[in-house]
């Protein structure tokens, strides 16, 4: 009773805070938890116990739920953002890692690492609609801005697969460098960026021609080449600036979206992995797996302004209105 009062009180308090306050959910791969962070005070407000090996994490389009892939439990758990408790699970295939949703938030596509498949899920009915056979170890997932093409990257096949979202057939395959991890379209659909963890590059793909038109490479003085392993990508809505997490290089590269030139490297925590912007794009938060924290980057100033301790081995992050 007393707890409920406190909770209600907290909710009222949250509602009363300025509009700039967002809430970030961080999946902690080893801790089997999700850390909730208030982006106004930059403090941890809750730690939610989830299933085993939480990785891919994303808000539902309506903001009511946060979905987190718990790979070792072979499912995706659904967290109610009001109560911040797990309320449901989704029928993903075995070992789900990353997933993406269509613009309407009706269909979800899940990469199942163990099965060489992408699973299609009806989010309203919470039912599995089917599977698409892709390359070995599917990982990165994204949808083109017009919703017509689903991209899946496969880590051992080293390809970005172009999948027609209507027919669910593969319509194109683009070879990229080793272990493609993450894929992201420019908001205008003109470019698809794919990071290759082991190859150490980000491929720029022309989505119409379906070929690699450029490659971003990284060079950090004093750091051996093999330690530079690009994973997460974040791009501003205007497509002008991109941020690329470089894994064990412990840095985020700031890249000019038009020229694809690296502008600078921001030192963050150890083994920087994935990232997300606050909806107003003022801040970018990146997960640092080995140092168990999240770095906050001021997007305009291109500076790291804060570090927040989270759970064990933070992996993914998603930010939205509370």
């Amino acid at each position, binding site marked *: 009773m007393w707890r409920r009062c406190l909770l209600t009180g907290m909710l009222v308090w949250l509602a009363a805070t300025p509009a700039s306050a967002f809430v970030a959910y961080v999946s902690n791969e080893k801790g089997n938890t999700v850390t909730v962070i208030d982006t106004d005070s930059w403090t941890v407000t809750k730690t939610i116990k989830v299933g085993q090996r939480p990785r891919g994490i994303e808000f539902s389009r309506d903001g009511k739920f946060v979905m987190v892939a718990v790979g070792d439990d072979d499912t995706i758990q659904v967290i109610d953002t009001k109560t911040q408790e797990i309320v449901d699970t989704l029928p993903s295939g075995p*070992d789900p890692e990353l997933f993406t949703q269509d613009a309407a938030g009706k269909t979800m596509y899940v990469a199942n*690492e*163990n099965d*060489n498949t992408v699973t299609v899920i009806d989010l309203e009915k919470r039912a599995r609609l089917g599977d698409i056979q892709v*390359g*070995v*170890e599917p990982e990165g997932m994204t949808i083109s801005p017009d919703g017509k093409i689903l991209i899946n990257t*496969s*880590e*051992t*096949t*080293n*390809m970005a*697969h172009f999948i027609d979202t209507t027919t669910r057939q*593969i319509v194109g*395959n683009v*070879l990229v460098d*080793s*272990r493609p991890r993450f894929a992201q379209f420019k908001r205008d659909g003109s470019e698809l960026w794919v990071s290759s963890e*082991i*190859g*150490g590059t980000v491929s720029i793909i022309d989505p119409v021609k379906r070929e690699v038109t450029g490659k971003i490479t990284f060079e950090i003085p004093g750091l*051996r*080449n*093999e*330690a530079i392993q690009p994973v997460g990508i974040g791009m501003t809505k205007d497509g002008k600036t991109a941020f690329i997490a470089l894994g*064990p290089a412990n840095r985020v590269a700031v890249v000019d979206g038009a020229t694809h030139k690296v502008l600078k490297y921001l030192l963050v925590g150890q083994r920087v992995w994935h990232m997300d912007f606050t909806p107003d794009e003022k801040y970018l938060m990146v997960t640092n797996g080995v140092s168990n924290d999240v770095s906050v980057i001021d997007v305009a100033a291109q500076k790291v302004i804060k570090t927040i301790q989270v759970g064990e081995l933070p992996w993914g992050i998603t930010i939205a209105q509370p």
Partner: protein
Amino acid sequence: MFRWLIGTIALSMVATGALAADPVVIHIGYLGHAGIKSTLSLVEQPADNDGIAGARLAIEDNNTTGKFLNQRFALDEVKVKDSDDVAKVATDLAGHNDYIITDLPADALLRVADALRDRGTVLLNAGAIDDRLREQDCRGNVIHVAPTRSMLADALGQYLVWKQWKRWLLVTGSHDQDKLYADALRRAATRFGAKIVQERTFEDTGGARRTDSGVTLIQRQMPVFTQQAPAYDVLVAADESEVFANYLPYRTWDPRPVAGSAGLVPTSWDAAHDQWGAVQIQNRFVKLNMRRMTALDMQSWTAARMIGEATSRTNSGDPKKVIAFLKGKDFSIAAFKGTRLTLRDWNLQLRQPILLADGRMVVSVSPQEGFLHQVSELDTLGVDRPETKCKLQ
């Protein structure tokens, strides 16, 4: 000649692109040796398909990728007995395969390499760890996927030094390969600043590895064998012949850890390795083969994947192009070791991190932090370019 003709036809098909329905077929041979070595531990007894099972998984992986590129991979498996003429068997195998993965002892491998030299067949050595194959006896048509003894010894040496276990009691078996491993361990001690406080030899006097009352005897034998040693931190055993090393842990006179051929073992792969996405290949392997993945399986998987990788990168069934890419500076392969693996251009040895495993867990992965190198930290393991005796021909 005939094979060459097929190659030409396949090429012209790729060129016209008209017959997309017929995939380009890449034939890979696997040349292993019959007979399984007997191990002290029943758990470590290799399966009949040790090695080949890894190549089979890589063929599946290559084919999953190949279906998007209209390429198909086929594996042709042959095992030779000691009495067989290995050069002849290999020549027959080379008649219908452009690449051959080998799991052969050093001398047999050299015979095969020399027999196939003029045909241009490339061998991928998955089994032999002898340094001489990459040094004075190196061959231009042999790519080495297996790590060398010196790479394994250096990987262990770096960890022991990092751990500040710098005083080693070295116990060596009486067989040739044991002595070679001991040489590599001595070299590692010198390179990384460890001290071998004493050396002992464990004579192989013959006898069965398994007896019904074995433990009682061993329990008395091992403490006696290791007593009156000068102060040491770790016992390092060189026993590739599987005669005594696995009897040492928990039985030494002084309570000391064991490393080398038992205890903490340097290896290219371990069934417990789960970092860097390795769980995925471990799962795939168990699903396909109904057993766990060994180092030889991984070395064979990597060899077959290297061909798959080069074939997809060149988008070509032409072995000349594929081999040129494999030996070129753009080649690298991902193999669940947290970094890309590349070839040392001076002797065609695959650079790779080495796991240190205790039979249940992966304890560490070398190169260790702080062992620096101007080109690649992976070159802190094994014989480096300035020291090489290899002249590739």
